């Protein structure tokens, strides 16, 4: 039982990362109904920017973070206005092709610019683990997990309680009506993409210390984040949090009780099963999915 509890608790860190990455994916999907297949690669760029700012330019960690997140937001906004906007109103396959093209492009360029050698980034919080009863929690894990929860709460508050959040939801559900009410669709979309990429970028930067920073770092993590987003429901904020943690815990349990090799397999199976049985996930909306 202790082992089980320990496994669950140590999933806090990665669960939080998956949740944050899934949040980034869902924020974009919520407004634009597009799955940003390039989200992993874009996030890696953010993490690489932190490294550059911190290591090459010698900036203090906090400043590096701010710079990189700003860069991520800019990248997201530029993607929307430079690429996605041009294919607005086309059938879904077009935007799928676009984000996949961007995935190849961004990942490739990241390799060219930064090279494939692993780099190191310090964790945000360091220090000894905290003991809670029989289990011990890594401080950084705790921070990441709590941060993910905080971001989720903040986003929910934003969407439900602020005027801008309402405007964003309006654009998502009925762009024409939103336009009539004076909400600029372009602005909202650009904002969503900026926030989405920035969020996933944060996830990547938090993950960097653990998985060694390379341009392909997010490949595996992106898959877990996908699974989390699908399980929670594409476009759902709470869903991203729940799904991300669920996937984190599930993969930790599998690694602990069965084998680390099977983690990815089970997670993929999860994706397909969820899409077959309940495509809208736990918290998503059924109407959007079928036919």
């Amino acid at each position: 039982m202790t082992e089980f509890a320990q496994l669950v608790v140590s999933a806090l860190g990665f669960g939080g990362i998956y949740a944050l990455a899934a949040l980034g994916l869902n924020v974009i999907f919520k407004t634009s109904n597009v799955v940003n297949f390039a989200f992993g690669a874009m996030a890696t760029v953010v993490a690489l920017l932190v490294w550059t700012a911190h290591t090459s330019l010698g900036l203090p960690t906090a400043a590096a973070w701010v710079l990189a997140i700003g860069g991520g937001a800019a990248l997201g906004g530029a993607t929307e206005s430079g690429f996605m906007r041009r294919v607005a109103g086309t059938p879904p396959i077009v935007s799928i092709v676009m984000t996949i093209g961007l995935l190849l492009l961004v990942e490739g360029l990241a390799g060219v610019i930064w090279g494939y050698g692993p780099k190191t980034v310090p964790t945000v919080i360091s220090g000894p683990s905290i003991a809670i009863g029989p289990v011990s929690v890594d401080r950084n894990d705790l921070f990441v997990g709590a941060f993910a929860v905080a971001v989720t709460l903040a986003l929910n508050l934003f969407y439900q309680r602020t005027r801008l959040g309402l405007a964003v939801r309006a654009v998502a559900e009925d762009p024409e009506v939103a336009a009539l009410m004076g909400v600029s669709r372009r602005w909202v979309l650009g904002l969503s993409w900026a926030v989405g990429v920035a969020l996933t970028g944060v996830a990547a930067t938090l993950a960097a210390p653990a998985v060694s920073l390379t341009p392909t770092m997010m490949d595996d993590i992106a898959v877990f984040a996908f699974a989390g987003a699908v399980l929670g429901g594409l476009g759902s904020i709470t869903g991203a949090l729940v799904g991300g943690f669920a996937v984190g815990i599930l993969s930790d349990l599998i690694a602990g009780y069965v084998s680390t090799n099977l983690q990815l397999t089970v997670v993929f199976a999860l994706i397909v099963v969820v899409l077959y049985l309940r495509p809208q996930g736990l918290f998503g909306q059924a109407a959007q999915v079928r036919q």
Partner: protein
Amino acid sequence: MSRRPGRAAALRRGGQQGDGRTWPSWTGAARSVARVPVLATLAVLVVALVFPRFEGGNTTVMSLATEALTYGLVTMSLNLLMGYGGQVSVGQAGFLAVGAYTTAIVATHFGGLPFIAVLALAGLVTAAVGLVLGLPAARLRGHYLAVATLGFGLAVPEIALNGGSLTGGYTGLIVPPQQLGPVMLNNPVPVYYLGLAVLLVSAAAIRSVLASPTGRRFMAVRDSQDTAPAMGINAGRTKVVLFTLSAFFCGLAGYVFALNNSIVEYSSFDFSLSLFFFAAVIVGGLGSMWGSLIGAALLVVIQQEAVSLGGFSEAILGVAVVIVLLLVPGGLASLARRTRDAVAGPRLPRRPAGPAGSGPGGLPDQRSSPAGASREG
């Protein structure tokens, strides 16, 4: 067919797209299925047949050529799925893997089987997997479908890695050489010819399907899934058949792949290969079989240079995809078409711009009756 100048303008009402989402005009062809450029095809065919006479001694080149044939069949199968069937798939390398592993496993455990049986099994087992994937996939659309195929494309190499002694795990499986009559298929040249034969027969079969009710059903579901049932089309079943067929041909490609590489390992089929196939089909031109072949050839070239290009190879593909999307939706195939049209003139005459608003009097054939003309308001 005579043309009546007034009619076209009379019936023409600009721009309204009443249908639900029509497929973007990427497929570009003036007809449902792109015409085969006969001369060009014959020329390439001759080159393909004669080519080993010159390069037969060069194992690397022959092996690359066979790789191009293999990739060509994969991209054609993906084009069938995406371009003609309208179903997004970013997991096609998974089917290739199933075909290749089936070949290796069957050849290892059932050594006496004739090569044609192994080939058939590779296709059929992969088709079965396609069926299984197609069942849930038929219920999904757009991004959800893409994510499902993503899951598949990622899962297959993982399963291969964890398949224990069946799949050889990390080290993979050696492919025992096959025998084609008196010829041993462990030599690059016979393997090349076999690959060419498989490609040609498959291409013929695919074209045959496209010019038949099944093919039209694929395209009907692609263009207007919700109204297709009124024409007697069971959309779900059609999509399942589509996935199954696409997987079948990809499985055949897996057989050739296995022979060509002599070893089948999980790392050959990672997710980036699926992405590359996807990019190759888009860049070649959705809905054009020739485009898919050209895309596959490009892919082989890029992969070869990948070692020296590093990240550039990915970036180049990415740029090509984005450029195609924004500027040349029909891909390379449409570029070729435009060049030919510019040189030789368009195949279909341009729509005549006649006087606006003229009534139906000029329109029909000999059926226009005086009664019809007098009703003009």
